[in-house]
């Protein structure tokens, strides 16, 4: 083995008892004494270290680096921002893979290309041949820099600890950063080859490699070898060059689009121009699209595809074994083995992994393209035909912090419905509804910040006759813009709606208000649709252009679904031709306070992207939004844009104690009427455009995108309730808003004093809104929220800006508005803080304390409750259900 190459960590592998083997000319550990199974499981459960210093690390720099990379890689290099990485393939002219690789941009003017160890020399020959035509250089830095993959649910915690608490990278996959780990320079990539949702590849100078390896082991990570690396990547269905790429067992080249990851790795962006293999790849892509549409008439360019495969019979599949459907061979297994997993217990978010382990026989196969998921096949295992199935996937990673094995289950057969006594069910429904109402209104302490309780008057009005009526109406210019109603019997509701519009105009300080939208999200969609329509108003004969760029609060930083491309922006946002992603850009947040927008950094973003639309507002909201500062900036810079403030969460706080959006420079305000506001669940849109302004046309569009654009029936019962809520709010807002904000600040201070970890800036008592956020530990949010619910305290478990997803949430998001409405004072919130600390920190049963505190406050405040009102309400109640 003397001629084999050794990495910077060779001596440590030998000292740790690693079984060293020849891997692509490198002497590498295939496993350590614990064995592959234990190493695999430790990665999934805690954190493993993999020496990946054998992989080729090539630095690309020089004036034509981008042109060169665009030519030799399958991906769109221009889509890479600083501190981003992308998976790519090095194609050959015929659309096969010379290798697959990862391209990293740690520095603005240089790219790092990481290739497979066994292919490095071949890649260099291929790349250097092309390099001759470009003014740039390719430097092999494999000796100067070592690479260690740190993979598994604890990887973030261990590395963050070494980084002194600094956020390692943005939370998304492929994010990069350069940090110091205990004083030593490290380039960190949120990438890996294990499928772990939390996993990093860390590049350090060669002289720091052994130090980093040993430090991470001291912190609890364990080394894992190539054997576990292979079973982990197989479970994650990630391709391996030489198995799923390169040539198949018959010696034929595997087309790049046979690999599912190709759809991410290959770009046909015009910015790439012509590149190696483009013509062949375009043909493959056309075939791929036909196959996805179930058109199997021409498979010439993509006869087979790589798919997951799971054995149903007992046995083990191995690479090279033939796969059959009936008597026809339909392909081969390309990778296969027995993979261990931890057995899960419980359901949904209460799912947890036990100490019990099991194994399953899974693989990847290169199969005749028409074969579909759930198809049954047979594998020839050394002369025996074993039954197998094509599963949808072997594992999923959308519920961090764990990679979750998906054990194949046959689709469920529909069960015929049992005989049902619906009268009994109906009676039960009434009883349960009664019980629920009492529980929520008299026994629970509800701290969900997006909820509130309505007064009795509002509740009853919502259930009265208009709840079952129609009142479509539209302004008609022939009648001097008077509202024309399409139905009879609507005079009462017409009056209600016009009174409501007036009350909401007064409340928001708006020139115009639309109240027909029935939710906050619908309000936003009506505005987005209007803006798009307005943008295209002079190009009616063309397909309308979408909106972009849009500046918004990212959902990972507390933004709401109703301003995300995956939410309400979905059908309205453009795709950036350079990045080939949605044309949204997020507000940068302060490094020391991720809940607060960084105004100076925002100005830079605005100057660069010149967003045509700016959406303030979010759902995890502790601070005022810097509307005035950004308005001033875009005016000074003469950047044409529209500023909207989605006040969904804070609609009930509009005023002196929080923000006056129009005075600060917002043009459009949307909101939902049931969070901090007093109403039933509806939406509202307000604008400050005046009739003589050009943009008044946008307001006219908003009206038409509300009706007929969004609703036909606009839910008249709750509209009636909302008018009462608006009367209440306009009468009591001064005392209510003051109490809410004082209570929130006091609640936060008390929770902190009780020993809880309150998020936010202590200098402003943690919050400027109704919300208080408490961190309870990474991934523990749901468990703690569930315990609080068992004790009749209802909170919202949430991922903080440092956490990847709701399944990893480590925070409780709470709001004081509902309990303030039930008359909670600062003293009551102090008592509540103490009770919650007992429950959260000491796991005590606090049900009695909660009930006692709650039952002292069951009468709704900030509403009309004089004798005359009560009498009218009693008479009204008597009519409902007549």
């Amino acid at each position, binding site marked *: 083995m003397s001629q084999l190459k050794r990495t910077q960590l060779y001596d440590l592998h030998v000292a740790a008892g690693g079984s060293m083997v020849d891997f692509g000319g490198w002497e590498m550990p*295939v*496993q350590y004494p614990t*064995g*592959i*199974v*234990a190493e695999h499981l430790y990665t999934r459960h805690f954190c493993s270290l993999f020496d990946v210093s054998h992989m080729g690390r090539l630095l690309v720099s020089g004036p034509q680096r981008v042109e060169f990379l665009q030519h030799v890689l399958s991906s769109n290099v221009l889509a890479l921002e600083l501190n981003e990485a992308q998976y790519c393939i090095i194609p050959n002219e015929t659309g096969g893979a010379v290798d697959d690789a990862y391209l990293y941009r740690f520095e603005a003017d240089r790219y790092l290309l990481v290739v497979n160890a066994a292919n490095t020399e071949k890649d260099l020959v291929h790349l250097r041949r092309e390099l001759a035509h470009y003014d740039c250089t390719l430097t092999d830095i494999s000796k100067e820099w070592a690479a260690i993959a740190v993979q598994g649910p604890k990887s973030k915690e261990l590395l963050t600890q070494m980084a002194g608490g600094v956020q390692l990278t943005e939370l998304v996959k492929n994010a990069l950063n350069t940090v110091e780990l205990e004083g030593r320079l490290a380039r960190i990539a949120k990438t890996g080859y294990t499928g772990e949702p939390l996993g990093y590849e860390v590049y350090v100078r060669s002289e720091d490699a052994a130090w980093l390896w040993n430090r991470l082991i001291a912190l609890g990570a364990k080394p894992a070898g190539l*054997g576990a690396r292979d*079973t982990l990547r197989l479970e994650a269905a990630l391709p391996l060059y030489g198995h799923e790429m390169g040539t198949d067992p018959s010696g034929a080249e595997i087309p790049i689009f046979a690999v599912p990851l190709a759809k991410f790795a290959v770009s046909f962006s015009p910015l790439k121009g012509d590149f190696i293999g483009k013509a062949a790849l375009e043909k493959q892509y056309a075939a791929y699209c036909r196959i996805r549409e179930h058109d199997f008439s021409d498979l010439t360019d993509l006869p087979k595809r790589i798919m997951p495969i799971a054995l149903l019979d*007992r*046995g*083990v599949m*191995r690479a090279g074994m033939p796969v059959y459907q009936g008597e026809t061979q339909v392909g081969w297994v390309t990778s296969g*083995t*027995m993979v*261990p997993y931890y057995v899960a217990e419980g359901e949904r978010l209460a799912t947890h992994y036990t100490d019990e382990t099991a*194994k399953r*026989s899974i693989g990847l196969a290169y199969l005749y393209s028409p074969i579909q998921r759930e198809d049954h096949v047979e594998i020839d295992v*050394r002369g025996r035909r074993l039954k197998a199935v094509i599963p949808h996937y072997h594992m999923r990673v959308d519920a961090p912090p764990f990679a979750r094995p998906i054990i194949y289950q046959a689709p469920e057969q529909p069960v015929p419905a049992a005989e049902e006594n619906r009268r009994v069910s109906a009676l039960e429904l009434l009883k349960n509804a009664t019980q629920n109402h009492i529980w929520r209104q008299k026994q629970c302490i509800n701290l969900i910040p997006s909820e509130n309780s309505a007064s009795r008057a509002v509740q009853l009005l919502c259930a009265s006759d208009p709840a079952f009526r129609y009142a479509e109406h539209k302004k008609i210019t022939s009648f001097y813009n008077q509202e024309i109603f399409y139905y009879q019997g609507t005079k009462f509701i017409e009056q209600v709606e016009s009174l409501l519009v007036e009350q909401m105009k007064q409340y928001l300080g708006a020139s115009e208000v639309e109240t027909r939208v029935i939710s906050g999200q619908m309000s936003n969609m009506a505005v987005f649709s209007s803006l798009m329509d307005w943008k295209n108003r002079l190009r009616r004969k063309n397909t309308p252009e979408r909106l972009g760029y849009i500046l918004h609060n990212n959902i990972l930083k507390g933004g709401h679904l109703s301003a995300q491309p995956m939410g309400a922006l979905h059908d309205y946002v453009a795709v950036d031709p350079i990045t080939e992603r949605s044309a949204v850009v997020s507000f940068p947040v302060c490094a020391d306070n991720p809940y607060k927008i960084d105004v100076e950094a925002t100005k830079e973003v605005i100057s660069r992207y010149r967003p045509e639309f700016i959406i303030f507002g979010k759902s995890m909201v502790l601070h005022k939004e810097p509307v005035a500062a950004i308005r001033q900036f875009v005016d000074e810079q003469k950047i044409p844009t529209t500023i909207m403030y989605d006040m969904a969460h804070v609609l009930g706080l509009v005023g002196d104690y929080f923000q006056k959006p129009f005075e600060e420079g917002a043009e459009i305000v949307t909101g939902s009427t049931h969070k901090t506001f007093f109403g039933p669940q509806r939406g509202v849109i307000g604008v400050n455009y005046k009739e003589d302004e050009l943009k008044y046309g946008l307001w006219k569009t908003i009206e038409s995108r509300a009706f007929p654009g969004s609703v036909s029936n606009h839910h008249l019962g709750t509209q009636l309730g909302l008018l009462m809520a608006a009367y209440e709010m306009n009468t009591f807002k001064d005392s209510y808003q003051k109490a809410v904000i004082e209570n929130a600040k006091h609640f936060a201070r008390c929770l902190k004093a009780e020993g809880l970890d309150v998020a936010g800036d202590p200098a402003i008592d943690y919050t400027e809104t109704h919300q208080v956020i408490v961190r309870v530990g990474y991934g523990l949010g749901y468990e703690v929220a569930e315990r609080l619910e068992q004790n009749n305290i209802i909170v919202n478990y949430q991922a903080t800006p440092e956490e990847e997803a709701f399944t990893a949430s480590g925070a409780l998001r709470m709001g004081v508005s509902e309990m303030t409405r039930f008359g909670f004072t600062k003293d009551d919130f102090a008592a509540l803080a103490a009770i919650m600390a007992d429950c959260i920190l000491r796991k005590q049963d606090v049900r009695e304390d909660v009930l006692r505190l709650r039952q002292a406050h069951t009468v709704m405040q900030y509403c009309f409750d004089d004798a005359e009102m009560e009498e009218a309400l009693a008479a009204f109640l008597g009519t409902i259900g007549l």
Partner: protein
Amino acid sequence: MNYPTDLRYTKSHEWLKEEDGVAVIGITEYAQDALGDLVFINLPEVGDEVCAGESFGDVESVKAVSELISPVSGVICAVNEELIDAPELLNTDPYGAWIIKVESVADREELMDAAAYEAHCAEEG
């Protein structure tokens, strides 16, 4: 590495113990260490005939498959079915985790004692 002296061994790393005319057969500690984590076993059935020097089943590690070679000819009278669900017992307790028992033993392969087998393993490296 452990080489119990009350057993006899084959070149293909099976061990054999004969008691009251019944041959008990398993794989050695050296074998399990070389194979790595065992994740699957294919076992014969009681009543099957085995031939000395021929395969009676196979064990699979994460990385590879390996045949089990019978040191004797005869008829299988017992199979250790515990191994079906827990092949890792061959890793953790190779001399306790027998695989098959054979009666009516006829031919035998060339067998080594513990010292000779240890030397054989040392040679294989």
